[in-house]
């Protein structure tokens, strides 16, 4: 599915700077590097570039590395490891040795702290697998109106994978976690270049940590985790945004106190009462805001581009994916006429309630001219997508129904 232009960009030794290519054909370059509604500076500074072990992805920033997955990869049920998006806050990212790696499980809210090696983790505990969407909280931030500062993600800070590893609750049980455990805190090896930069440390409520689906994952899509996605071990919190999915995990701490740190507060906060969410993180709530928790219901058209042209009489397939925070997708509806009428799309195999669900819809347009296509998902709890952006200062939870124009000639 790689276009010839993409191929040229990548094969010319690497990577031409975006500026050179953009002058040649701005429309096409912009399409492949993100939606036109991104800030113009974000589109101009993006380029296709390949991190070691990865395919060329859309570079948002080199250091720390923030790379998003081109939408065409989302036509597969599971996103290939070498195309999976990369997101870091801090630029010091050590290569971790599997042999030397150790995980410490400790804290004031457990009785029997211990350390464990990679071999012990993979040998001494039941290994389970869950299919789950991993989505950056800030996915689609670049589409916020007005624009808000941060990594200006388009649609690609997301992927779906089969995660395999040990249940977090099994490790906590071995450590004798106590009833007064309030939060479970995660730290990994990545850190800031300056000592003064707050280390990236995250906590989740004890109830979510004890959920049977929350994993300490060693594998992704049947392979060891790629370095850029957390090798050797990362946390997987199905349903919740990826800010909690700590990469290069080195410590798990059970505490009876709310964890205080920059990356919990003021970072990763949403205003209270604006979103139809179910999961609460009570120990971190303030008067005005709360940590982001589960993903809102959302969908993405993956096989069409805005402005694409078709011949009159040709059958058109609209296809994509839909996901939510763990209830599972109930329906996806497609509109061929800008939202006046809606038809049920066909849902593909259910891969589990934390996985995204592929869907498709076929039709033959009855007239020539411009047609506005839309897709709208609903989950099993009855929540659906919005038509107007629910603005918030960090640009989270953008599940505005997409509008895609196609031309029939």
């Amino acid at each position, binding site marked *: 599915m790689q276009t010839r232009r993409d191929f040229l960009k990548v094969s010319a030794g690497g990577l031409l700077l975006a500026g050179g290519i953009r002058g040649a054909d701005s429309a096409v370059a912009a399409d492949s590097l993100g939606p036109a509604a991104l*800030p113009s500076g974000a589109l101009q500074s993006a380029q296709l570039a390949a991190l070691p072990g990865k395919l060329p992805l859309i570079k948002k*920033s080199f250091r720390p590395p923030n790379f998003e997955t081109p939408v065409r990869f989302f036509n597969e049920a599971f996103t290939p490891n070498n195309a999976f998006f990369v997101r870091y806050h801090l630029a010091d990212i050590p290569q971790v040795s599997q042999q030397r790696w150790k995980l410490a499980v400790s804290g004031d809210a457990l009785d029997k702290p211990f350390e464990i090696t990679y071999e012990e983790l993979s040998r001494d505990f039941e290994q389970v697998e869950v299919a789950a969407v991993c989505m950056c909280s800030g996915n689609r931030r670049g589409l916020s109106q007005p624009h808000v500062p941060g990594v200006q993600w388009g649609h690609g800070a997301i992927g779906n994978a089969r995660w395999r590893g040990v249940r977090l609750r099994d490790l906590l049980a071995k450590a004798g976690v106590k009833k007064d455990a309030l939060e479970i805190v995660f730290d990994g090896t990545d850190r800031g270049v300056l000592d003064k930069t707050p280390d990236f440390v995250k906590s989740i409520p004890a109830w979510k940590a004890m959920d049977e689906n929350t994993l300490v994952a060693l594998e992704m899509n049947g392979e060891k985790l790629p370095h850029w996605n957390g090798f050797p071990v990362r946390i997987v919190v199905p349903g919740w945004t990826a800010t909690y999915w700590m990469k290069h995990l080195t410590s798990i701490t059970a505490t009876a106190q709310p964890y205080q740190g920059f990356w919990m507060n003021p970072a990763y906060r949403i205003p209270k009462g604006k979103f139809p969410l179910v999961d609460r993180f009570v120990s971190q709530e303030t008067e005005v805001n709360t940590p982001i928790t589960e993903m809102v219901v959302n969908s993405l058209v993956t096989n069409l581009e805005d402005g694409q042209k078709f011949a009159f009489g040709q059958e058109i397939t609209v296809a994509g994916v839909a996901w939510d925070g763990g209830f599972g997708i109930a329906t996806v509806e497609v509109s061929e006429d800008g939202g006046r009428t809606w038809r049920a799309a066909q849902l593909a195999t259910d891969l589990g309630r934390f996985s995204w669900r592929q869907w498709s819809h076929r039709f033959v347009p009855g007239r020539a001219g411009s047609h506005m296509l839309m897709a709208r998902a609903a989950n099993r709890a009855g929540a659906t997508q919005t038509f107007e952006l629910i603005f918030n200062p960090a640009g989270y939870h953008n599940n505005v129904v997409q509008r895609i124009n196609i031309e029939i000639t």
Partner: protein
Amino acid sequence: MRTILALMMVLAAAPALAQESQLRLRDGPGRQLVEASCVMCHSLDYIPMNSPFLDRKGWEASVNKMIKVMGAPIAEADAQKIVDYLAGQYGK
């Protein structure tokens, strides 16, 4: 101060990709100060990526966050020059 900055640039984590060295900011008063201050911790593409939608207040907030939260060792006088450059070259 310059010596410290230069030293810290050397100590900074090695870029994952050499293409980072090809990034250039727009020419303008203060460009070298901005480049030296920002590349300690992150690549320069963060600046054009966040443009042109921040006004002077927006860039001031970003620079303040880098100093007060992230611990960037930037003197107050330099911070003003950095904000001037960002608002002038990459502002709304």
